C-alpha cells in the first residue's frame, strides 16, 4: 500500500507537471492575456498553492512517513519548476540586459555612445514604472515631492543589503 501510495504521488505529480506546462504551451501561450506578468504569476502561484495542499493532504492520508517526505519533495519540485519558468519568462519579456544584447545583435557592431543614447530612454521608462509599482506594493511612499521607504520597504531594502554584503558586487544598478 505504501509503495503504491508513494509511487502514486510521484506519478500523479509528474502527470500534473506535464499537464500544467502543456496547457500553457498548447492553449494559453497564444492568448494575449497570457502575456501579462500578473496572469502568468497567478497561473503558477494558484497552481502551486492548490498542488501543495492536495499533495500534502494525500500524503498524510497515506500514514507512512516516506509519503510525507515525498510530498515535501514534490512541493519543492513545483517551486523549482515555477521559479525556472517565471525567471525565463520575465527575462524574455523585460530584461534590460537582454534588450541591449538583442539591439547589438540587430546592429552587428554598435558605437557604445549610440547604444547608451538609444537604450537610456528604455531605462528611464522602466525606472518610472518600477517606482509606481513599488509604491503600489506599499514599499514606497510619497511625502510631498519626496519618495520615502515605508516600513516594509525598509525591511526589503535591508534584505537586499544583506544579499549585497554576501555577493560583494561593487556597483549596482
Amino acid at each position, binding site marked *: 500500500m505504501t509503495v503504491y501510495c508513494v509511487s502514486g504521488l510521484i506519478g500523479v505529480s509528474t502527470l500534473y507537471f506535464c499537464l500544467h506546462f502543456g496547457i500553457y504551451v498548447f492553449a494559453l501561450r497564444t492568448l494575449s492575456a497570457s502575456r501579462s506578468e500578473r496572469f502568468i504569476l497567478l497561473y503558477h502561484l494558484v497552481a502551486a498553492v492548490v498542488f501543495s495542499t492536495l499533495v500534502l493532504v494525500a500524503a498524510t492520508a497515506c500514514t507512512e512517513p516516506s509519503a510525507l517526505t515525498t510530498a515535501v519533495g514534490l512541493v*519543492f519540485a513545483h517551486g523549482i519548476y515555477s*521559479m525556472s519558468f517565471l525567471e525565463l519568462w520575465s527575462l524574455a519579456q523585460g530584461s*534590460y540586459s537582454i534588450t541591449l*544584447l538583442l539591439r547589438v545583435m540587430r546592429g552587428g557592431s554598435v558605437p557604445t555612445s549610440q547604444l547608451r543614447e538609444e537604450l537610456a530612454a528604455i531605462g528611464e521608462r522602466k*525606472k518610472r514604472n518600477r517606482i509606481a509599482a513599488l509604491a503600489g506594493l506599499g514599499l514606497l511612499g510619497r511625502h510631498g515631492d*519626496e519618495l520615502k521607504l515605508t516600513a516594509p520597504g525598509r525591511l526589503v531594502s535591508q534584505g537586499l543589503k544583506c544579499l549585497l554584503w554576501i555577493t560583494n558586487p561593487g556597483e549596482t*544598478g
Partner: protein
Amino acid sequence: MWFVTSVGFWLLAVAAHAVLCRLRLPFTAVGRFLLANLAIGTALAWLVCRSYGIWSAPTFSALLVFGFLSELYLFLSTLAVASISATVLLTLRNRSLSEEQLSVLLNGQRMVSLRVERLLAAGLLSESASQVRLTAAGTILGTRFLRLKAFLGHTTAAHDHAEP
C-alpha cells in the same frame, strides 16, 4: 533530519559563495555560486545517498529542497545587484529623495553603461574602438532568447516597449 541537512548545506553554499566573492577569481558572481553549489551539492548528494540510499524519499527530497533554495538565492542575489527596483529601494534606504534627484542618481545612460560593463565582463560582448559587438557566446545567447521570445509570444517590438 534530511530537511535540516539540506538547509544546512545550502547555508554552507551561501557562506562559500561569500568567501569566493572576496577572492580574485576569473568568474562572475553567478559562476562563483555555481562553483560553490556544485561542490556543496555533490557533498550533500553523497551524504544523503550514504545515509538513506540512492532511491529513497529523503534523498530525493533533500536534493530538491537544496535545489530550490539555491535557485531562490541565485535569483534574489542577481535581483539585488541588477534590478532597477532593488536599486531604487537601496538608494532610498537612508534618505528620501525627489523623483528628479533619483533620476540624476540613477540615470538611464549610467544604467546602460553598467549593463554593457557586465556583458563585457561575462564575455557576451566585446569592445574595440568604442564599438561593441557580440561574441560567439553572446550570439548563442541572443539567438536562444529570440527563440524563447517567439515561443512565449513576446515580440521584439513589444519587448522593447515592455512595462514590467
